[in-house]
């Protein structure tokens, strides 16, 4: 029969609940469609009319006049008329409420097969007490015995459903449906399981496969289409976002956009998905469950099971009651070296409402490990940073560090530079400051030549990633290590400058001369007006309160002043300088040294600054006299010597070694005397090191005393392989190089989430033996 000769559509049956329309077509079989909750009768329209018309199908359409789940009495009455017009091999098709009807009435209508997308098997609260979606539509008068059971089904009932959508799954999997039911699972579609069937051609092909009973063919068809389906990408992106896989979701939405998805639609989907993500744990998880998950993250991070940390973190929103989640996820990703995990961890940190200190820690770590863009994104994701001076001071050095990432693209390089300068309170011009004036004072230049540089030995714990070892070896080959001690120090003079307890130096006009990477504090700027006025001083402020930085950077930078130097010129110190500062000044000068204090601000008319740092360190040159005084003073102390010395850090709360007792035992077995330096007089500490031939211990400021030792010592340093900052951890190896010691480094894993580490005893002992025997490192 040609399409033109077809009889017009007509109503087969109508009552107060349903309308049934017959739209004759040219197909050899009939299709019975059942509308969903939202479709209402309108003339001769039926559900799925577009593919029906496009494919020329002979179709009978059921539509409910309300959301009434097609009451059985009405359908039974309509079935008589329907069966009369159906052609051989009729099949059924419905979605949601329509899917229910296709299942329920397939056998009644004499259908060969039905396709039910996201169907219910009942809305009776007694049948489905946990699916609250449709209970309000349940009417005991209409729906008695409505549940679908095996006897209702035709020979083949194909159910399309999302296996991960709990509410639809409980219907699709309901017991009692029997062998007639076959499933086609469509992950992440939630209740939108009809989506893959959009389009007349695909409907036609699926119906052909349904008639042929080829369920595997239906599965294969849908699977093959999903790569080109923007709806699939949208659905999976939404699911990814709801599960906290933010970066993955972004990538999937990007693909959906390439396939034509509207940016505005994606925007809305993302907003909803994100709300779902943030709400889901709160709704579904009881406090006990949250505590359990938090415990899992902590336990996995403690065990350094980074895969598990990454997996668990992906399931969690960054809830405030899950401490260290962002740090743990970041550390896990960095430890694994996985780009995907890093993308997820970064997205988590960007999206999380992190305490500000945590945000800085994560951003700093990313910057230190060469992930400049990720660092900037994490840092700037909190707009509150812009309005807080203290926060700006923390952010500036992170931006400076992020700029060192050579892979950072130009907009972000420019942004980081400009923003850092603005946070520092500076204008965008660094060129018109006059160069500093040379000081009339200078370091001594003894004629003796530097001795041969010390040698390095590197080993590592077995579990440690090879790239960490390589990174450390590269650090030891870097120019700042190789050139240490090679540049003669000099002294410069700054006139009419302010100095504060942070060691920052700035002019009356606000020009920064020495920033230490931070803007001048508000309190310092405010204190300028009433600042004490000093005619002259040598800069001796050590801002970190750290023994290493005091000895190696600051004290040595004052050698010109203490040698014996200009009489009466005070050394400017922090007002809260530790006791060892004044003590070591007096030892270095061989007499009490006048000092002055830098609080919020002090005005110095003539401020002298000596070169500082390992680059300028000359134990046999400019610093020889200073070091000689320490040696002499330590000799007078007559400290009992131990040939092998282990400097323990049990007295320190920083970088705590969890098994230091066990490690000390390893060293003690090899003749080491174990000692802590906390509370010991300075000269005794120096005396102990000077008396030892082999010095060992975990990385710590006690190794700064290597400066005071005669060349040729053997040093064995247990080094925490922190992520980033490995270059900084090479400081003692560099010091040994300048001082002519043989320096062994044994790298061991460090748990950055908790800030502690556990040194594997047996491999450490084996490495120590190799080092002591003079054999090569690993």
């Amino acid at each position: 029969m040609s399409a033109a000769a077809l009889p017009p559509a007509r109503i087969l049956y109508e009552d107060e609940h349903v309308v049934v329309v017959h739209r004759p077509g040219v197909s050899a079989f009939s299709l019975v469609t059942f509308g969903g909750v939202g479709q209402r009768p309108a003339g001769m329209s039926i559900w799925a009319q577009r593919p029906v018309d496009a494919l020329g199908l002979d179709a009978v359409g059921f539509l409910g006049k309300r959301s009434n789940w097609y009451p059985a009495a009405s359908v039974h009455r309509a079935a008589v008329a329907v069966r009369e017009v159906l052609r051989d091999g009729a099949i059924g098709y419905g979605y949601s409420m329509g899917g229910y009807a296709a299942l329920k009435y397939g056998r009644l209508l004499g259908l060969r097969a039905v396709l039910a997308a996201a169907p219910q098997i009942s809305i009776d609260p007694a049948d489905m007490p946990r699916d609250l979606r449709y209970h309000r539509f349940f009417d005991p008068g209409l729906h008695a015995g409505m549940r679908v059971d095996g006897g209702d089904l035709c020979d083949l009932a194909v159910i399309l459903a999302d296996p991960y959508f709990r509410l639809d799954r409980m219907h699709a999997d309901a017991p009692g449906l029997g062998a007639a039911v076959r499933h086609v699972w469509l992950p992440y579609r939630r209740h939108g399981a009809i989506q893959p069937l959009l389009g007349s051609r695909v409907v036609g092909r699926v119906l052909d496969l349904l008639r042929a009973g080829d369920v595997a063919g239906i599965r294969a068809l849908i699977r093959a289409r999903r790569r080109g389906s923007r709806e699939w990408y949208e659905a999976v992106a939404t699911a990814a976002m709801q599960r906290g896989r933010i970066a993955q979701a972004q990538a999937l939405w990007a693909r959906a956009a390439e396939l034509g998805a509207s940016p505005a639609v994606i925007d809305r989907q993302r907003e909803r998905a994100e709300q779902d993500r943030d709400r889901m744990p709160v709704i579904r998880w009881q406090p006990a469950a949250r505590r359990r998950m938090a415990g899992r993250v902590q336990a996995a991070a403690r065990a350094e099971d980074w895969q598990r940390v990454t997996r668990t973190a992906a399931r969690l929103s960054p809830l405030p009651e899950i401490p260290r989640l962002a740090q743990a996820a970041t550390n896990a990703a960095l430890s694994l070296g996985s780009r995907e995990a890093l993308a997820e961890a970064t997205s988590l940190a960007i999206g999380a409402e992190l305490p500000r200190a945590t945000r800085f820690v994560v951003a700093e770590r990313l910057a230190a490990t060469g992930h400049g863009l990720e660092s900037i994104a994490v840092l700037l994701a909190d707009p509150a940073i812009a309005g807080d001076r203290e926060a700006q001071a923390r952010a500036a050095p992170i931006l400076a560090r992020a700029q060192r990432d050579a892979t950072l693209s130009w907009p972000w390089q420019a942004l980081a530079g400009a923003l850092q300068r603005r946070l520092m309170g500076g204008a965008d011009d660094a060129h018109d400051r006059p160069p500093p004036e040379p000081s009339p004072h200078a370091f001594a230049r003894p004629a003796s030549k530097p001795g041969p540089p010390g040698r390095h030995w590197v080993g590592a714990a077995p579990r440690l990633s090879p790239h960490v070892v390589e990174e450390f070896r590269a650090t030891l080959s870097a120019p700042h290590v190789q050139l240490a001690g090679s540049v003669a120090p000099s002294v410069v003079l700054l006139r009419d400058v302010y100095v504060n307890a942070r060691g920052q130096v700035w002019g009356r006009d606000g020009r920064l001369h020495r920033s230490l990477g931070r803007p001048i504090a508000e309190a310092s700027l405010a204190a300028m007006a009433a600042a004490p006025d000093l005619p002259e001083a040598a800069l001796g402020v050590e801002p970190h309160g750290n023994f290493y930085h005091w000895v190696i950077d600051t004290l040595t930078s004052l050698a010109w002043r203490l040698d014996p130097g200009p009489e009466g010129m005070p050394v400017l110190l922090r007002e809260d300088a530790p006791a060892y500062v004044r003590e070591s000044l007096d030892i270095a000068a061989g007499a009490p040294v006048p000092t002055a204090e830098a609080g919020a601000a002090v005005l110095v008319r003539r401020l002298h600054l000596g070169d500082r740092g390992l680059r300028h360190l000359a134990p046999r040159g400019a610093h020889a006299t200073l070091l000689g005084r320490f040696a002499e003073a330590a000799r007078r102390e007559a400290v009992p010597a131990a040939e092998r010395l282990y400097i323990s850090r049990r007295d320190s709360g920083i970088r705590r070694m969890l098994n230091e007792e066990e490690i000390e035992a390893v060293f003690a077995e090899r003749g080491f005397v174990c000692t802590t330096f906390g509370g010991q007089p300075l000269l005794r500490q120096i005396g102990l090191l000077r008396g030892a031939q082999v010095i060992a211990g975990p990385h710590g400021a006690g190794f700064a005393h290597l400066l005071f030792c005669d060349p040729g010592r053997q040093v064995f340093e247990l080094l925490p392989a922190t992520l980033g900052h490995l270059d900084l951890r090479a400081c003692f190896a560099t010091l040994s190089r300048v001082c002519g010691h043989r320096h062994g480094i044994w790298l061991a894993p460090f748990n950055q989430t908790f800030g502690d580490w556990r040194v594997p005893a047996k491999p450490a002992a084996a490495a120590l033996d190799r080092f002591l025997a003079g054999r090569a490192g690993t």
Partner: protein
Amino acid sequence: MGDRTAVASEVGDILDLVPHAGPAPERGAPAPAASRAPAAAPARSPAAMAERAVADGTAETVRETATRLIRMEIAPGARIASARVFARAGRGEEALAVLLADPATFGSPVAAVVLDHVVQIQGLPRPVAALAWHLRRRLREEARRRKAAAAP
């Protein structure tokens, strides 16, 4: 001691070569030496500069203009307007970099007009897209909070 220039290079690690603190140049005041060259170009508003760069379309011009806008001291409104030009032209990274280069603008609620466009742009690096999204979300939440607080 050597001459002043030699000393300056020798002590480079002591004295950070950071720019001077102090107020930004006033409008109409002569530009400092380093920024004199760009200032010699015909006077144009930042948004107009961005428009011209976007219309030109070459990567070099866009890069040069965006970098200038990032570094220039410009009023927050002008910064946001120029960032929006880049965003509307689909240049999300340039837009964000111009917007975020000044603390006065990246925490501003008005920044949302730029971010609204940036979040619609596909193909941005993941951290950039996430940053734009969450900044916008936070600015919106902040605006809602402010509105609720202002309500009688």
